[in-house]
């Protein structure tokens, strides 16, 4: 997420330049640190509900959301921490949400699976796989009706392409020519299942193509190419080019949830994938671009310190007052006015 409405300054040529790479490095480290903190917090009994860490998928979040304006709209999934941070949400507030505390994004009413920050255009993770796709389509209808120049980005997993709303939402965006970027963040698994075994035909891109959407397939662990591609695609969408589909290949390095040891897959497979994870790859590119290791180490330290502080603060936040349970249900027929 960049500040306000300007698309960020960029380096010329084919690369995106060290400055922008450094930005991604920072964002990705922040996401990684957030996930690790959340996992640890859950192990310590501080996170009462389920969390779905995005370790290994940070490039998708940063590469894509780094090209959005603050008032662009993002819809995410149960595995949405990274996207939310990359869209500009404050991780300190998010941690409070995961801990179920007052001052969390939803004052502890949503938790990880419903993380949202409307102030930065992040309109919610979703506990129902694929439901965000149709919601995203409609958000784009609203942009069209209002005549805005905003765009919608909808990120979902490889498992979601087997749900009906995938077809309905993509078709919808196509026939009304709506400003939406659909991103299938393919980490090979849906829960304990190898998604490919459950997916007929050539896969997500072919399906989107058959629905009339232009398709871009990308290495989801290469933040640079994600950044470049999204910049162009987002610009096309913004200028009325209609919906687009990105299929990005990444890998879920952790379990499905923080509690999942993921014993259903080979250690060797996971190790091989660790060697292709996006943050180290980004660091290597930075070194190539002439940034020195000391700088990178400093960023890592800063990030860790910052996250540790946020966590301490989150721990100190009070639980939501009990009245919150009855707030924000509805105006008409508000349960607070009812003796039940």
């Amino acid at each position, binding site marked *: 997420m960049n500040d306000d409405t300007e698309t960020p300054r960029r380096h010329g040529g084919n690369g995106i330049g060290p400055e922008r790479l450094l930005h991604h490095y920072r964002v990705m480290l922040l996401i990684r640190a957030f996930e690790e903190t959340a996992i640890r917090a859950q192990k310590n009994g501080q996170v009462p509900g389920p969390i779905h860490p995005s370790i290994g998928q940070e490039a998708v979040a940063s590469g894509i959301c780094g090209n959005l304006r603050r008032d662009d709209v993002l819809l995410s999934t149960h595995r949405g921490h990274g996207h939310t941070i990359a869209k500009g949400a404050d991780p300190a507030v998010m941690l409070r949400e995961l801990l179920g505390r007052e001052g969390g994004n939803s004052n502890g009413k949503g938790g990880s699976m419903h993380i949202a920050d409307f102030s930065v255009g992040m*309109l919610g993770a979703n506990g129902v796989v694929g439901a965000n796709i149709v919601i995203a389509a409609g958000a784009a209808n609203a942009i069209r009706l209002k005549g805005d120049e905003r765009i919608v980005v909808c990120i979902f997993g490889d498992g979601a392409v087997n749900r009906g709303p995938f077809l*309905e939402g993509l078709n919808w965006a196509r026939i009304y020519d709506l400003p939406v970027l659909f991103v299938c963040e393919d980490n090979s698994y849906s829960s304990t299942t190898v998604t490919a075994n459950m997916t007929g035909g050539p896969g997500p891109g072919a399906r989107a193509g058959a629905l009339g959407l232009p398709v871009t397939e990308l290495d989801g662990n290469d933040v640079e190419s994600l950044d470049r591609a999204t910049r162009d695609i987002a610009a096309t969408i913004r200028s009325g080019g209609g919906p687009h589909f990105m299929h990005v290949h990444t890998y879920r390095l952790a379990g499905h949830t923080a509690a999942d040891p993921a014993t259903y897959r080979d250690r060797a497979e996971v190790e091989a994938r660790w060697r292709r994870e996006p943050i180290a790859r980004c660091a290597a590119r930075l070194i190539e671009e002439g940034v020195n290791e000391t700088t990178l180490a400093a960023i890592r330290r800063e990030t860790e310190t910052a996250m540790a502080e946020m966590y301490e603060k989150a721990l100190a936040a009070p639980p939501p007052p009990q009245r919150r349970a009855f707030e924000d249900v509805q*105006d*008409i027929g508000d349960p607070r006015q009812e003796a039940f």
Partner: protein
Amino acid sequence: METMSYLEAGRAALSDEMSADPDVWALGEDLGRGGVFGQYRGLAEEFGPERIMDTPISEACIMGAAVGAAMMGTRPVVEMRFSDFALCAIDELVNQAAKARYMFGGQTRVPLVVREPMGMWRSSAAQHSQSLEAWYAHIPGLVVTAPATPEDNYRLLRAAIRADDPVVHLEHKDLWPVEGALERTVTPPGAEEFGRARIARQGGDLSIITWSAMLYRCLEAAEALAAEGIQAEIIDLRTLWPWDKATVLESTARTGRCLIVHEAVAVGGFGGEIAATVQEKVFSSLKGPVRRLGAPRVPISYAPPLEDMVRVGTEQIITTAREMMHAK
């Protein structure tokens, strides 16, 4: 005051809201051609295809898109064609629309209206005749309206569009041609429309609570009962969530007898909620148990004589009311 049919009243409500507020729009199948019952006739011509939007046969996306568009500050009116087809969009309505405001801690609201033509009508059989208002009343976050008259269809639909909550607006297909007087207002009817029952007929002997098309059966029954000297008070609830407990309890406390009549299946119907509440709150005023009339727990048939077996009829209301007068 003008005279309008129930169908025209719905159209007028939408038209008036769309004229007043550019954020109001409608979406559903075949709306451009006027909708399957003609409820949208002329509106596409008036407001254009982006605001009276024809959709594919994609109920999940129709509802889901409305959720997204509502969270973005527009006021979508969803047409579900038959209330039965809303069952193809229940995740979007119940898991998304109803819960978003709460899950997100008040960061957003979902001001959408779902129009669901309900009930038995012209031998439409099991998949085109259901009355599932009890389901929606059970779901936190949803508002539920069930107008019986043109005036209420007008006022409640306008108020529903203005509400910041998701509203399930149940129009009864059998009422489309029913005519009545109403006043088209400049100021939209507001929150005061909800949870306010209408005493459709006054009476001191027993209270009959009803809504939607059953109102007319109850009124017929009341006529017949009056001829026998039994004065039934008929209460048209108009909205089921919130529902007007005060009026129901006051009436029942006065008459000592309460009968609830609805078209939906009796088992698990909203009549159970009302009966449970009434007996709890005015127990000592009751001269006998609260009674309910609804459909037996069977799907709806195609053949008219079988359809009639599950339709609560005027005779049944009269008989039950009589029993209640003579019991204990």
